[in-house]
């Protein structure tokens, strides 16, 4: 390579890009040669490095929390429990749960609700084809006992009830009312309280 003479206008840009790791190997060779004993080049290089360092040491501000969503998982928790998340999403949710105590508690509550719904006893009569919009006391109906937590909550909301027994409809109706109240107060909330125990028919 022929001897290079440092020219700030021509080579300064190379120094900046060199500091940022954005040069080709050929350009790196040019910079290396320029910095080999040329005091003017070295001074230019050091001054650019100094500016770059000062910029990169600027303190980083925290974004105001009010600008961001609360960061919890919402309805993804139910899908997580039911194994309905694709692998990458599953991993993200797992990572979040490891770090977030709030979501761990909500996950446990959802799991208890899910287990409670899944362990509802089977019933004898067939499933009604028509789902009433409201609960009508003293009338026997059937519940679709299986399904996921969200489906169970929805089932309570539309007033499905377990048949048999003296009056289990009122118990579930009360649960549904409480759930509606809580869901209204906390948009996005779809968890049965952990203390709920569904009365056996």
């Amino acid at each position, binding site marked *: 390579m022929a001897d290079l003479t440092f020219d700030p206008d021509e080579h*300064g*840009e190379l*120094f*900046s*890009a060199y500091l*940022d790791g*954005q040069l080709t190997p050929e350009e790196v060779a040019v910079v290396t040669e320029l910095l080999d004993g040329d005091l003017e080049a070295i001074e230019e290089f050091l*001054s*650019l490095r*100094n*500016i*770059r360092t*000062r*910029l*990169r040491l*600027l303190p*980083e*501000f*925290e*974004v*105001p929390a009010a*600008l*961001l*969503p609360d*960061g919890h998982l919402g309805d993804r928790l139910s899908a997580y429990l039911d194994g309905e998340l*694709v692998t*990458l*999403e599953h991993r*993200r949710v797992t990572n979040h749960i490891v770090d977030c105590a709030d979501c761990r508690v909500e996950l446990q509550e959802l799991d208890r609700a899910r287990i409670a719904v899944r362990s509802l006893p089977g019933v004898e009569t067939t499933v009604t084809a028509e789902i009433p919009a409201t609960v009508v006391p003293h009338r026997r109906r059937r519940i679709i006992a299986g399904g996921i937590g969200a489906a169970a909550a929805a089932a309570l909301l539309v007033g499905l009830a377990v048949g048999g027994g003296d009056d289990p409809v009122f118990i579930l109706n009360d649960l549904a009312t409480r759930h509606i109240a809580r869901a209204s107060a906390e948009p996005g909330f779809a968890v049965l309280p952990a203390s709920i125990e569904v009365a056996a028919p």
Partner: protein
Amino acid sequence: MTDEFTPTWEDVAHRYGRKIYNFAYRLTGNPDDAADLVQEVLLRVRKGLPSYRPGSFEGWLWRITRNAFLDGIRKKKRRPESALPEGDHHALGSSPSPDEVLASIRLSDNVQAALLKLPYEFREAVVLCDVVGLSYDEIAEAADVPVGTVRSRIHRGRKLLRGMLTWPI
């Protein structure tokens, strides 16, 4: 972010909200403008995600961020009661003399003040590189200019800053 799955806007907010906020803060020196930009960008991300196709997510996001920032400046230009960032006055030809600039910049916390004196294109390139941490390729994609232009802008921006700041520290 190079995931094959499109992130949710909540993911975007948490992963990039801070970077977007700092980008805007360093460009404007103003926390209110920075907060406004974060809100606007997240709104645009939320609207745009359904039509986003997996690819260079960073490029897509920073293009949105840059456009939102420039739209904000244009709105302010239509409202004369709102002051432009100082560097934009500079870009419009009302630049202070070097002595005025030097006098206005105190030794403490002077980098931010110097940044605000840069013409917008240089300031943007420097902030995206040194504050946000984007590569030249990513900056080129966000600003829709060739990589060589990005390289030139970053260098010229740093040279201007060097002229305004005392050296060594």
